[in-house]
């Protein structure tokens, strides 16, 4: 009896050690994975999205249909004198064929394959600020928070007057006066002092060294525009009763080119992003055809035993058509401040107003993002409504950036 108890005790201890070991290994793996994360996963169930988010390489699995996406977006870097390098990106995606995902097969693209290349420019419709403008904006907004307002119409005049390298109290008072806000220098001094901005008659304005004045940088939206070219290769299985019996289930190849212009806007406030895209694409009506299951049953009889062999194939029935269509896509991505930007919500619309695949679809995606990197989604869920409702579960695969 005592021996059995001891044996049970040792077994339990051994099991606990194994569990502890597994937990340690998992934690170690998690720790290895954590520093290298995936990025822009804000797409719908069909892999469409208009938000260009920076973060180097990424990989993504759409768990629902096993599509794998690999992407790389290179930010162009900032330049001198308003000249900027364009950003560029490439994305590959493929669907499984048999047991593996074939991006390439014998040197040619696999049966379900897509490649998209992008090239874009920052500050396309918005203005890239210089350091003097930023300091002027900080001064005006700091004064505004302390109750010294400058009328919106006069704001630019005040900003122009504040574009000096070495501002002092007199300059600020004169700038406000010329913009129609006449205040006592002592008031200005007190208001700026409250915001950790030191200023007096002779000494230049001094922001508290090392302090982040980002909260005072307002009314400065950021935008970018990009051209995107894409190529899709797909192979579909179709069914038709109107052809000879042996050819009723057949494969149809599809090659589609697309071109679009994509616009992103980070408006004032850092918790949302707008994305719109418009372009032309070669599309087909495969999604609108009826899904059928074709069963071929062959019967073998041997020694009085009847054996049925069933071959089951999924195919779509109907008139397969292709057309070149105009399309528009739109995304609104919101990172609620309540969750410290760890959650991204994507409300989106996809429309193709004409052609063989006419549709208006809308949906919602919810993504979990990396701490301190809201543009790098770890995973998420996306639901696409309109026609056939599609639900996609995404998981980010980290690699690339150290």
């Amino acid at each position, binding site marked *: 009896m005592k021996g059995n108890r001891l044996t049970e005790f040792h077994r339990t201890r051994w099991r606990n050690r194994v569990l502890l070991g597994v937990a340690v290994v998992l934690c170690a793996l998690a720790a290895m994975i954590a520093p290298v994360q995936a990025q822009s996963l804000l797409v719908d169930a069909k892999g469409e999205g208009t938000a260009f988010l920076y973060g180097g390489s990424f990989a993504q699995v759409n768990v629902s249909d096993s599509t794998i996406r690999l992407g790389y977006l290179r930010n162009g870097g900032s330049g001198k004198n308003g000249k900027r390098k364009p950003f560029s990106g490439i994305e590959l995606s493929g669907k499984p064929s048999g047991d593996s995902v074939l991006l390439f097969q014998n040197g040619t693209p696999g049966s379900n394959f897509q490649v998209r290349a992008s090239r874009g420019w920052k500050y396309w419709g918005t203005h890239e600020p210089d350091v003097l403008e930023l300091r002027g904006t900080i001064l005006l907004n700091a004064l505004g928070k302390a109750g010294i307002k400058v009328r919106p119409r006069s704001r630019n005049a005040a900003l122009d007057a504040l574009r000096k390298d070495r501002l002092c109290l007199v300059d600020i008072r004169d700038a406000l006066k010329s913009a129609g806000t006449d205040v006592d220098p002592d008031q200005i001094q007190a208001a700026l002092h409250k915001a950790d901005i030191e200023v007096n008659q002779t000494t230049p304005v001094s922001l508290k060294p090392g302090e982040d004045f980002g909260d005072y940088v307002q009314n400065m939206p950021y935008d970018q525009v990009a051209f995107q070219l894409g190529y899709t290769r797909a192979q579909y299985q179709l069914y038709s009763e109107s052809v000879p019996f042996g050819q009723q289930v057949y494969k149809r190849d599809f090659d589609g080119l697309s071109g679009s212009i994509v616009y992103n806007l980070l408006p004032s406030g850092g918790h949302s992003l707008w994305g719109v895209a418009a372009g032309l694409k070669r599309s087909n009506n495969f999604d609108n055809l009826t899904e059928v299951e074709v069963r071929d049953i062959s019967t073998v009889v041997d020694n009085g035993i009847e054996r049925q062999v069933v071959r089951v194939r999924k195919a779509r029935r109907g008139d397969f058509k292709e057309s070149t269509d105009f399309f528009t896509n739109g995304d609104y991505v919101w990172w609620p401040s309540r969750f410290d930007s760890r959650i991204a919500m994507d409300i989106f619309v996809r429309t193709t107003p004409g052609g063989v695949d006419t549709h208006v679809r809308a949906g919602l995606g919810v993504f979990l993002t990396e701490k301190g990197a809201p543009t790098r989604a770890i995973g998420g869920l996306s639901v696409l409504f309109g026609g056939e409702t599609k639900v996609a579960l995404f998981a980010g695969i980290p690699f690339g*950036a150290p």
Partner: protein
Amino acid sequence: MPQITIKTTVVGYLSDVQIWLEGRQTRLGYDGAKTWSTTDIVDDERGSVEVALHGTGVAGTDWELTISELHPAQKQLYDKKGSIKSSGHSFVEDSVQLK
């Protein structure tokens, strides 16, 4: 006039970064992931250099600004961490001691 070579680096998944040294905007390179950097020669006359950082991105995005001397010595001069504010911006000015 004594001069030193410094490397300024910003690490973070930001939409855009601007760096000014002594009031002049630098040309930043980008590694395609999250590191922006510039190497510049600055005058060592005053014993310090004025740096300003403007970062744009989604609120809550972490960043780190480091400045290191590359020549004649090799040492880190400055390190500052922060994150993008609710406005979608960060703006920091500081004086970096060169000695």
